[in-house]
């Protein structure tokens, strides 16, 4: 073996290390990720770092209603971001609202991702009429505005966090299906899939072990962007009054509650939850953009 000495295993960074170092090259990505992590931490830690549980009616005092930022509540603590019409401390309500928003976004995004990519993989692998049928269904789904479809679905299903998640999944699966089918079609034509077929592997194994992992990169990008989209959509539905109930205000509900006070100068009730929503969505989108840049082989150096 003459080539053995000349061909040692090339020592390379582990794929994750390389990915991480490339990701953090951009300061925007660093800031966005830090913001996102802070938001997630605040949302998770809400019960321990907020002075009030806005869902516990016993802790909410109507006499504290519409206090401007910095005023002291009846219970003694300072309401740094003011309070809404019902007397909820906005700081507490925003963090609790973030919990709901993130949970809805992640849950609906995750479920839609799993269902959508399974459907997309199946379509790409099955081919023929099955594929045509599924993809026309996807086209049909995507031709309706997402907000409209979700609105109709929620109107049919009724209120509640589980109904919202179902509606968002039904709206979003098509994006994942289309993305996965696109890259699965490309992967399916590659020689290693033919080689796997020549090894006599089962169809399920070829799809799940060989095609699916090679479609992950675009899926991750679409996943982050669609999660942000789901959060915005949930806020929209709640703002329109068909989302979450008043007793469990999400960010959208808070914005809607403050909307009627905007013209009377009590800006804080709408603006602060709005800013929290904006920050969340922008940071997720920026992280998603950076992921797309790093994971796109055409842009890599």
């Amino acid at each position: 073996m003459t080539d053995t000495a000349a061909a040692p295993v090339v020592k390379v960074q582990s794929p994750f290390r390389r990915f991480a170092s490339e990701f953090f090259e951009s300061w925007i990505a660093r800031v966005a990720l830090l913001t996102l992590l802070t938001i997630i931490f605040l949302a998770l830690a809400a019960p321990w770092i907020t002075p009030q549980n806005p869902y516990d009616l016993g802790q909410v005092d109507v006499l504290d209603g519409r206090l401007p930022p910095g005023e002291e509540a009846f219970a003694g603590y300072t309401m740094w971001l003011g309070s809404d019409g019902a007397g909820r401390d906005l700081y507490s309500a925003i963090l609790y609202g973030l919990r709901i928003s993130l949970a809805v976004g992640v849950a609906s995004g995750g479920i839609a991702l799993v269902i959508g990519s399974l459907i997309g993989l199946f379509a790409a692998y099955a081919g023929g009429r099955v594929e045509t049928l599924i993809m026309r269904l996807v086209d049909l789904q995507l031709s309706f505005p997402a907000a409209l479809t979700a609105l109709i679905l929620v109107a049919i299903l009724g209120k509640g966090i589980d109904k919202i998640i179902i509606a968002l999944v039904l709206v979003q699966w098509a994006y994942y299906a289309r993305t996965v089918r696109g890259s699965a079609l490309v992967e399916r034509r590659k020689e290693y899939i033919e080689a796997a077929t020549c090894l006599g592997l089962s169809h399920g194994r070829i799809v799940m072990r060989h095609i699916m992992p090679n479609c992950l990169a675009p899926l991750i990008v679409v996943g982050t962007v669609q999660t942000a989209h789901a959060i915005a959509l949930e806020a929209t539905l709640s703002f329109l009054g068909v989302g979450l109930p008043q007793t469990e205000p999400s960010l959208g509900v808070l914005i809607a509650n403050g909307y009627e006070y905007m013209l009377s100068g009590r800006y804080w009730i709408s603006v602060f939850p709005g800013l929290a929503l904006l920050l969340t969505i922008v940071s997720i989108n920026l992280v998603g953009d950076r992921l797309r840049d790093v994971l796109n082989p055409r842009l890599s150096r």
Partner: protein
Amino acid sequence: MTATLSVTGLHTHFFTRAGVVKAVDGVDFDVAPGEVMGLVGESGSGKSITGFSIMGLIDEPGKIVSGSIRLKGEELVGASEEAMRALRGNRVAMIFQDPMMTLNPVLRVDTQMVEAIRAHEKVSKRDALARSRDALGMVGIPAPEERLRAYPHQLSGGMRQRVAIAIAFLNEPDLIIADEPTTALDVTIQSQIIHEAQSLCKRTGTALIWITHDLAVVAGIADRIAVMYAGRIVEAGGIDAVIDTPLHPYTVGLLGSVPTSNRRGERLTQIPGMPPNVLNLPEGCTFRERCPRATAECRHEPAITEPRAGQAVRCFHPHGGGA
């Protein structure tokens, strides 16, 4: 000795919108255990389709129209998809041209090897790993333990092709079909791989079909050679006989177009014209329009004759045999 593989009268046609493409149009050959058969021809001559027909991997709109493919006596034409899958990778394995493409980029070498074993046999992961390590050692990969944990992109092209060969030999198949496996490699690596594959076949009794357009490679590895032209075998025989005293004008032309050092400075001969349009093959001998020896007789289908023992040709006017 009974043949490992015997192909008789194989016709694989593709029913396209433009017409019927007779990619393989009447191919017969046998391969004995431990024998290496070179299948040579230009692109589009049907050599790869012959390989895929044996694997049972002819996709729509292609179809094996007639003929028989027997692996150790067992008929493969018309076998169920289930039966073919049990066969693939187990009794018939395949090695592809581009080692950069045939290993899954996101799975480690050990994962892919263990998977190939466990698709056909109930063995523990540990045993499968041990067998994979041995197989890597067999194809001359140093430090196989380390290479097992590598991802394909961490290995060189030659190394990857060795892995592909090791995977093909993993389940000790009766037959391996190698589709231009050294075309993408350096000549030095090429000769090592050829040597490795040849000695493995002799040792394990595996029959090997080596598909290539490179006569030099075939001369180095094959025991026998079959030359394909437009979906048919035009000449077949022992490697030395065919290379030294070719009978068919096409084989003569192929050999004449290979530059060699002892004809330095001379003009290389070429085969005039282009391979025929597969949609519209000429009547009779498909080579006659490019053939310097063609006569009116060639408008009829030439039969297979054996002017010399063990060297068959499909021609009315073979070289060396009068005419």
